[in-house]
């Protein structure tokens, strides 16, 4: 189930609430009380997970065909009658704070990425992390949760995707029986804030106990629905996907100044960033790595790529696209994501053709349009040998 709500819909003071909500959805409703959702599902051979992004919150259930009715009952119960037991809220607050400690405070790369995004976005809600700031995790109130539920967990803000060993008619009948009676709500207030154009490079430094430095560079990039999204996707393969990509060859293979290069774009509702995430080798000044990155971007802007290089990038992009759909889980996720973020699930079936239509000129054009210094934010992790006192 795809709910059209993510950190993009939050505001100061309640950052991270969408993600917290993702957790609360497992903590009891009217028919299935605390712990019962997971128990009932596991008792029937099913399993679940969920994830939150800047743009959406997604609930995933995997189960044998015999559990189909139960799944509808469980999903309808929590979509209509979620409870907000004070004790559960406090306990789950602890879980989420621990998730943040795990994946941000004790993960330097994510810690740096959070600061990078906070600098790259000043007005738009992509400024804050999906997990939220720790201080907000500690302070949101029950009323915040109730209001959020009312607004964003209405059926008119949600899509159900189901793939696998099912009968279409049965699914529609169950949806009518369980989901249709849940009343619609007034549509959520649209997100109207757009990020003002960046007019100069921004730089961020994070000093931390670590053995190695780290470099992340973000350029503002278009939303998923923008016609430039797929040309940039092809550019991503040319620059940093695979061991024959330009940045891997130069940074990791030839000059050996980096241990790894990663990054690229991710599909979003609003303009996001094109990221370069580079792990410099021990003892290599970060500035040297950054210089090589800038040189490679400049090359792409000044000289057209060869036909063979373009073809290679397209072939790999297409193969990777198909790989995401090897499983029924991957298929369901792709359908929902395309409908939510690309505006229409039919876009999924045009992606391969559209990748194949990207030209040499397109690649050069998007390199010149998006990868410009004024639109760049650079974040650097500076390793400190002596530990700071961070006891909590």
């Amino acid at each position: 189930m795809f709910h059209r709500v993510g950190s993009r819909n939050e505001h100061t003071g309640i950052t991270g609430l969408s993600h917290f909500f993702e957790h609360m959805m497992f903590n009891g409703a009217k028919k299935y009380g605390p712990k019962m959702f997971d128990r009932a599902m596991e008792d029937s051979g099913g399993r679940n997970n969920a994830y939150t992004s800047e743009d959406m919150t997604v609930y995933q259930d995997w189960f044998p065909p015999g559990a189909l009715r139960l799944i509808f009952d469980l999903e309808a119960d929590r979509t209509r009658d979620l409870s907000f037991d004070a004790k559960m809220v406090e306990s789950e607050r602890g879980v989420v704070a621990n998730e943040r400690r795990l994946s941000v405070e004790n993960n330097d790369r994510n810690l740096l990425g959070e600061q990078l995004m906070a600098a790259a976005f000043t007005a738009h809600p992509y400024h804050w992390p999906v997990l939220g700031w720790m201080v907000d995790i500690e302070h949101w109130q029950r009323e915040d949760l109730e209001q959020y539920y009312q607004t964003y967990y209405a059926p008119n803000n949600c899509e159900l995707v189901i793939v696998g060993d099912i009968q279409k008619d049965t699914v529609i009948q169950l949806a009518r029986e369980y989901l249709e009676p849940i009343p619609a709500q007034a549509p959520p207030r649209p997100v109207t804030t757009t990020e003002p154009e960046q007019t100069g490079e921004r730089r961020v430094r994070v000093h931390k106990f670590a053995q190695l430095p780290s470099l992340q560079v973000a350029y503002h990039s278009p939303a998923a629905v923008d016609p430039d999204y797929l040309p940039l996707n092809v550019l991503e393969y040319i620059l940093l996907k695979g061991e024959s990509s330009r940045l891997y060859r130069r940074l990791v293979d030839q000059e050996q100044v980096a241990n790894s290069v990663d990054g690229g774009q991710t599909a979003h509702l609003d303009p996001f960033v094109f990221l370069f995430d580079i792990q410099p080798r021990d003892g290599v000044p970060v500035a040297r790595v950054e210089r090589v990155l800038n040189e490679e971007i400049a090359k792409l802007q000044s000289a057209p790529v060869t036909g063979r290089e373009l073809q290679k990038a397209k072939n790999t992009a297409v193969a990777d696209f198909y790989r995401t759909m090897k499983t029924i889980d991957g298929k369901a996720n792709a359908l929902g994501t395309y409908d939510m973020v690309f505006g229409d699930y039919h876009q999924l079936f045009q992606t391969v053709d559209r990748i194949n239509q990207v030209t040499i000129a397109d690649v050069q054009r998007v390199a010149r349009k998006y990868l410009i210094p004024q639109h760049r934010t650079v974040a650097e992790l500076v390793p400190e040998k002596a530990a700071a006192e961070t006891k909590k």
Partner: protein
Amino acid sequence: MKRIPNWRGGLAAVWMMTGLAAATGWVAPSMAQEPTLRLPEYQTVKLENGLTLLLLERRQLPLVSLHWVLKSGGAIADPAGREGLASLTAGLLRKGARSRTAGQVAETLDFVGATFEAGAGLDCASGSCEFVKKDSAAMLDLVADLLLHPAFPAAELNKLAKQEIDGIKEEKAVPEQVIGRYYAGALFGSHPYGRPVGGTETSLARITRKDVARFYEERYAPNEMILAVVGDFSSAELVRRLRDLFGAWKPKSVPAVRLDPTAAVTGRHALIIDKPDATQTFFHFGNLGLAYTNQDRVEVEVVNTLFGGRFTSMINTELRIQSGLTYGASSRFSPLRVPGAFTISSFTPNASTERAMTLALETLKRLHDQGITADQLKSAKAYLKGLFPPRFETNDQLAATLAELELYGLDRKFIDGWFGRIDALTLADARRIIDQYYPLENLEFVFIGQAAVIEPVAKKLAGDVRKQAIEAPGF
């Protein structure tokens, strides 16, 4: 995320790089009846030089997945002080062969959107290649070239070793990525299973091209290799092609690695890895687990599902769901050629280190004191049966499974008999499994976090407490 991805333990113990990912779908039996489970039909062919081929035709998509296992190429064969040799040898296969440079190999693979991965686990080396059917001829040529005629250029070894060394320093910034290596070292000591498969900051620096070439010459042989291929091909044609490519490879007598089962830990011991900036304490504790071919494998998986193998497990209920002390707590067995580790793991804020540890131990004690109920047993059976098919949805999952069964001398009966064994499990069996496989008094503890916070807790738990700095080389 609601939970850490890859929550479930898979079948896979040997494939350290990818594991068996979550997925869905099986050869669907009639839905009216109780579902049964059988591996699809596949063919086993032994070439004259001892190479074992496992072939499963599956034509839903024009894709082919190839998975190879080299029985003699695992990290247990690493010489002392050269930890990481098996891993580097496998990693260097794609870095040049006969007439191809590393760059040409990368270009060839990327041009057709194919993947090639290779690495080492403890018991074996293994690798995989996935490609589109129309590229089969070129990709099979490439794989044979990389496996049979690797060049191991010194410059590439130098590069890869340095990358791996820096990679370890990078991983040490993220405790959850390295705690398993410290735990294996503490639990197994000088036994080959105590070795870090990927080597250490110092051992990797010592490895020379000569070491790699010798390891390959001695240990890579057709009679030690299993090649599983799943996907869109004709078996008869593929066997001919593979015979052409691999048939002339000469068998060798490979020196066996002595691998005795190690003795279980007695008493309680603790190792603290000091990471002064940590805001959480990460912990692993347990003792020896079981071997891959252990007759109780399936039964142990059922009990472990209830204790620490799923979201509503006893340990996750106590440490996460009821108390919010952690984001996740779990337990798992790592089945290997001889018994691997049994591990209970979690993490918690510094201030709740003692509370979380106490609760984890109390939960383990409760498993012994109260056992499990009939309802719990029924639920675990349904859970495992319902989620077994997704382990075998894709070509690559199936190829890895076939190769792994062959590696440990098992066959399709292990999978085909799985549901029957689950069904047959009784409460009395569960009691025996708890008594036999869940240690209570004798435990090895490993912590990563602020030593000043952990030390008082560790001293209450264990008689002997050691300390080490995270930045100190090795594990």
